[in-house]
């Protein structure tokens, strides 16, 4: 009998049969892990199994390769307080859909879990939560093996005035070297460099950041979801555009 307990975030819950649900959870030690929750579509558990909610999960199965079943307990209701906040709710839905679509199943990524936790907390309190979201996607790329090299200019080797990223190599390019390529390079917002200057980035910088991570998520990690990012990410970007 396989059994473990872990903390995690609900990524999705799909109704299964009359009252159960197949739930995808981003766990601290077991990565993205699915399981059946009996009564998961029922009145008592449906509220707990909202995307973004933090839970204490206990998973059991006869063999490790089985789907197994979860028993869950709410440890942090993250979704509820955001239901009335359109932008943040769209960000939460996007992050959960991206994690569900891109993260490999049953592969432990403690760093990504920790980053996801910070992201969820930022929706509640941080004024620069959009920047945290972009950094989370950047971290996701790195953790999945498609990290961008933003340490120095790919053409000149300088570490100052990095303004663009090559869409092919994912390496930073300084303003001077980027000039001849016009609009063919992706813009690199300053807040992604060495933690930025501490100020809350503006809308343009956020959109540049999302365009940057979106390009690499779609074209490099995209094989697992046929090259199209989840629609909720597009709706999140549309919302931020206003």
């Amino acid at each position, binding site marked *: 009998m396989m059994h473990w307990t872990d903390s995690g975030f609900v990524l*999705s819950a*799909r109704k299964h049969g*009359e009252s159960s649900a197949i739930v995808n959870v981003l766990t601290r030690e077991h990565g993205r892990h699915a399981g059946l929750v009996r009564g998961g579509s029922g009145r008592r558990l*449906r*509220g*707990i199994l*909202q*995307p*973004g*909610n933090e839970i204490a999960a206990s998973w059991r199965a006869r063999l490790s390769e089985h789907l197994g079943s979860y028993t869950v307990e*709410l440890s*942090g*209701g993250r*979704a*509820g*307080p955001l*239901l*009335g906040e*359109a932008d943040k*709710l*769209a960000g*939460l*839905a996007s992050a*959960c*859909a991206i994690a*569900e679509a891109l993260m490999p199943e049953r592969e432990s990524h403690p760093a990504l879990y920790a980053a996801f936790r910070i992201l969820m907390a930022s929706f509640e309190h941080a004024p620069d939560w959009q920047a945290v979201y972009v950094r989370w996607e950047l971290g996701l790329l790195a953790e999945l093996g498609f990290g961008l090299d933003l340490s120095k200019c790919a053409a000149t080797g300088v570490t100052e005035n990095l303004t663009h990223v090559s869409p092919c190599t994912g390496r930073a390019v300084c303003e001077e070297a980027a000039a001849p390529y016009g609009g063919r390079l992706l813009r690199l917002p300053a807040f992604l460099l060495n933690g930025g200057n501490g100020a809350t980035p503006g809308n343009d910088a956020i959109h540049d950041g999302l365009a940057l991570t979106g390009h690499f998520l779609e074209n490099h990690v995209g094989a697992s979801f046929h090259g199209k990012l*989840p*629609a*909720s990410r597009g*709706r999140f970007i549309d*919302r931020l555009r206003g």
Partner: protein
Amino acid sequence: MTGGDIERLIQLLAKVPGLGPRSARRAALHLLKRKETALEPLADALVAAAEKVRTCSTCGNLDGIDPCSICVDQNRNLTIICVVEDVADLWALERAGGFRGQYHVLGGTLSALDGVGPDDLNITGLVNRAHDENVVEVILAMGATVDGQTTAHYVIDRLADCGVSVSQLAHGIPVGGELDYLDDGTISAAMKARRPI
């Protein structure tokens, strides 16, 4: 009726929500034992429903006439439209009896998981109805779920140019609810939606 017919009846009944193979078998036996009082009226009702019930072209409700009996009822308030996810929600509101306006059934919610986008929902029909000069208010009665509220925010954006007032059902403590037994999300939603008395 051969054994095969009975088996088919059981299989079809087992597909009805709330019935499994065992309860479908019991229901089939009940119907077959009361052929004249239960089975034949049920069969007639099923045939009549299959022939007559259709989706209302105005609001998306299910009824025997199109437009449905709610849409043509002149005693209802024609200036308010209540938007619901599904026909079941419309029926729930009608059961509660607290609303006497018009309805609009979206047909689901936006869902990344199930691939449901705005084009799959009856949002354009709602926007067209909201442009009617008689309509003054649209009430959003979507579920207090991430998908439900994501849909609600999307609908609010789409209604922005219609010149109607948009409101939403309150989220909070249910009738008979005790704080000690409520989840954190409900309590914080109730706290946010508090109102002066």
